[in-house]
């Protein structure tokens, strides 16, 4: 037996329970309608779950991208301060983020696909709910008991089948979200631990070194400026000061 027939059998098995419950075919119409409504709610909840998962991935991707941009800037700063070693380190860390970003993008695409499919499923179910609400009453009023047996049976199994399909779609989306959530959790931990140099940590080690370099070069510059100032004005102003009693306090000359 081929895959398509076997798939059909699986879908039937999933929905047989619904059909077994009602003894009177007319009753099964109301039961089907009830189940259809529940199914629609379930699919809508699933759409919301998938959207939440998608947002989380987007947030993580934004954070990672910001880190990559920051490292790029740090590499530039390091080079302008003649610290090629630091620039190299920053670029190496930036390169290490690339596969993580690519992975997030793949996940994002998958979740977005699931979301789109579920939205269509919800729309189809809504159409079914609207159509079946009137159709079931017409069927109840029109068919004799004998006709009802077959006609209603056919409609109910059609509805059951599409609910089975929707149920499988929801399960599938849930499985995807579950597996992603584990990875998203790991990524959050990684971001929080500083292993990826967390953004919320204002001073990371590369930045600390850059700041240090920049601070010491500021001191050098200030020193040079002072020396220049002193050098220019010294002969006139500092000359006589050599004879002042301040020297006697034991301070070493600068």
């Amino acid at each position, binding site marked *: 037996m081929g895959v398509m027939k*076997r798939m059909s059998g699986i879908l039937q098995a999933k929905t047989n329970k619904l059909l077994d419950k009602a003894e009177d075919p007319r009753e099964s119409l109301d039961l089907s309608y009830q189940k259809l409504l529940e199914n629609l709610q379930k699919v809508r909840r699933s759409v919301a779950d998938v959207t939440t998962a998608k947002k989380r991935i987007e947030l993580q991707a934004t954070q990672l991208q910001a880190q990559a941009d920051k490292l790029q800037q740090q590499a530039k700063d390091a080079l302008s301060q003649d610290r090629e070693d630091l620039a190299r380190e920053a670029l190496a860390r930036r390169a290490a983020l690339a596969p993580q970003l690519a992975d997030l993008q793949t996940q994002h695409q998958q979740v977005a696909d699931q979301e789109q499919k579920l939205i269509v499923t919800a729309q189809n179910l809504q159409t079914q709910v609207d159509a079946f609400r009137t159709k079931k009453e017409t069927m109840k009023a029109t068919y004799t008991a004998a006709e009802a047996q077959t006609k209603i049976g056919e*409609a109910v199994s059609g509805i059951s089948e599409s609910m089975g399909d929707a149920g*499988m*779609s929801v399960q599938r989306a849930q499985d995807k979200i579950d597996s992603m959530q584990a990875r998203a959790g790991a990524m959050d931990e990684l971001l929080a631990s500083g292993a990826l140099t967390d953004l919320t940590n204002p001073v990371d080690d590369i930045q600390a070194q850059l700041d240090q370099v920049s601070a010491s070069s500021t001191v050098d510059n200030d020193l040079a400026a002072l020396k220049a100032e002193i050098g220019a004005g010294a002969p006139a102003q500092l000359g006589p000061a050599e004879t002042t009693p301040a020297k006697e306090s034991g301070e070493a000359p600068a």
Partner: protein
Amino acid sequence: MIVRILGEGQFDVPDAGRAALDELEHALNTAVDGQDEAAFASALGALIDAVRKAGSALPPDAFTSSDLVVPFSDATLAETKALLEEPGGERV
């Protein structure tokens, strides 16, 4: 003949299209049995394209059951194999 593509909907495929679908399904069966992921993906894609092309889409409120069911268009081999193990999927 009514064919459902999981996650997508039902299609009414004229009986004349049956032979072509059978052939495409055969490739899918072979890929599943041979655990060939790449062959599975291309066979599934070809089968779904054929159903969409040969059949006319039924409205969601057709309320009828299907003769054949095709896996989700983005189904993986592993996922499909797992599904086929479920009740109702016996080869018979």
